[in-house]
């Protein structure tokens, strides 16, 4: 899958750095400011203001779930782990916290730009997949409705295949999904005559 990176989209973005005051925060702030972001350092926890951030950098060494105003893995923006100790337990925690990318400490002269792009791309990909999965789940859950709608339509003397085809044409004419069309057919069939729909 080719996803061309968009340019011009980091200017004015807001980054929160959840880390105690430290030279790593200074070095990272310098890099982010040069790239065009505004930066806020906070410790020991993020408050509701962080919900407006475009990126959150967090300390993986001293971090814990209670620092975030959202549930683990459910951040509304890309998250970047600042990793000092490469201990497996800390990596595991930062992944569960929802890291989309990481930077190793100490942060020096470079690395922030690549990390921002990687984190943004990972976050977007995850969000697109989540949307797709939610859509598929919903459609799976509506299978029963589709069967009922086809049965209702077939009751007018059509074969099952003809009824299914007609339902598909209704969905196309109404510009809605097959499942939503089925729901309309079922709802209409409950109170009045199905033929009103045709």
């Amino acid at each position: 899958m080719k996803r061309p990176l968009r340019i011009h989209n980091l200017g004015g973005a807001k980054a929160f750095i959840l880390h105690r005051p430290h030279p790593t925060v200074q070095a990272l702030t310098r890099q982010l400011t040069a790239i065009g972001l505004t930066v806020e350092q906070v410790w020991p926890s993020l408050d509701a203001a962080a919900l407006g951030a475009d990126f959150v950098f967090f300390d993986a060494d001293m971090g814990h779930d209670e620092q975030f105003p959202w549930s683990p893995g459910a951040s509304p923006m890309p998250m970047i782990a600042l990793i000092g100790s490469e201990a497996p337990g800390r990596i595991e925690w930062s992944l569960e916290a929802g890291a989309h990318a990481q930077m190793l400490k100490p942060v020096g002269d470079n690395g922030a730009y690549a990390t921002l792009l990687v984190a943004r791309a990972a976050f977007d990909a995850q969000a697109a997949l989540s949307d797709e999965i939610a859509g598929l789940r919903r459609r799976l859950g509506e299978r029963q409705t589709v069967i009922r709608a086809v049965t209702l339509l077939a009751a007018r003397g059509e074969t099952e295949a003809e009824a299914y085809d007609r339902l598909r044409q209704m969905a196309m004419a109404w510009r809605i999904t097959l499942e939503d069309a089925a729901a309309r057919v079922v709802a209409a069939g409950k109170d009045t005559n199905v033929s009103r729909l045709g």
Partner: protein
Amino acid sequence: MKRRVELGLLYSRSGSYSLIGQACRTGALAAIAQINADPDNALTFLPVERDPAGNIDHYAPLCAEILRETTAQHVIGCVTSWSRKEVIPVLEKLGGTLWYTVPYEGFEASDHVVYTHACPNQHLLPLLDWAMPHHGKRAYLTGSNYIWGWEMNRLARDIVQTAGGQILGERYLPIGSTDVARMIEEIRACRPDFIVNSLIGPSSYEFMSAYRALGGQDTAFHPARCPVLSCNLTEAELPALGDRAEGLIAAGPYFCGQQSWPGGSFGSSHEAATFVAVRELARLLSAKPQAKGLSDLLAGAGGVIDPDTHHTRLPVLIARVEQGAFRVIQHRGEIAGDPYLSRNREPAAPHLRVVS
């Protein structure tokens, strides 16, 4: 008694980019001579020169040698992104600063580098902004096979397509290769409105030769119809190109004969931007003799260098090669360097001045 400050110079005086390195060196030496001769200046510069002779593996060790074996903390040098990226780790380790004075592809803002020539919002963007209304939106992209060519063409593609234009072809040559026949055949077949040339050195010279020959056979490829655009070609390379450069359109902060910036007469923008780097360094060192490191030196110092990005506010000029010399065809005012293309674009319109 003037304060004596050792200043590193790291330019190749031989090898394939020696013309550009020599132009930069000329600008640096001119600035040093001017500063040293000025009785009102509080310091004199003592140049410490090392010559990597065009060998990429010599840059980092020679930069380290300057920073370790002399008192120099500032090095003026490098004319390719490749060599700049080679010396940055040395600068970080030894606390030095590099003043990089040639155009580059942007997307960098090292804490140890000052960039005094143009980045894409000061060369490629204005150049395409000039070219598309004048010639059309169908572009062919060429480049040398390394970061300059790749990044310039990636940006050009993005900008042209966003403007509703088309990229008809994109082809690269290894650095040093003169095998341009396939590019020329593709250009002949697809008939673009303009060509972006991000080739360097002999590849670029050979391409310009072959394209001029093509223009001789078919007027569709005459520079007036389908010009070659360049963001790094200056007077420094015109003697190597001769007639082949006629009609080429370039963007840059300075062309020979311009009086407004940086003040004085220079052989090319490479020379001018290096001159500016040395002058600005002298000004900063005089204003803050006790400064600890580059950030401290730039903080609150004013001037043309942005302390956040270390990039420079520069004039943006579009010029065409006519009878062996660049003639400026558009002044676009001064624009601050925006290496990540993330800052608000400054309105170009109020500064526009067409020179016909």
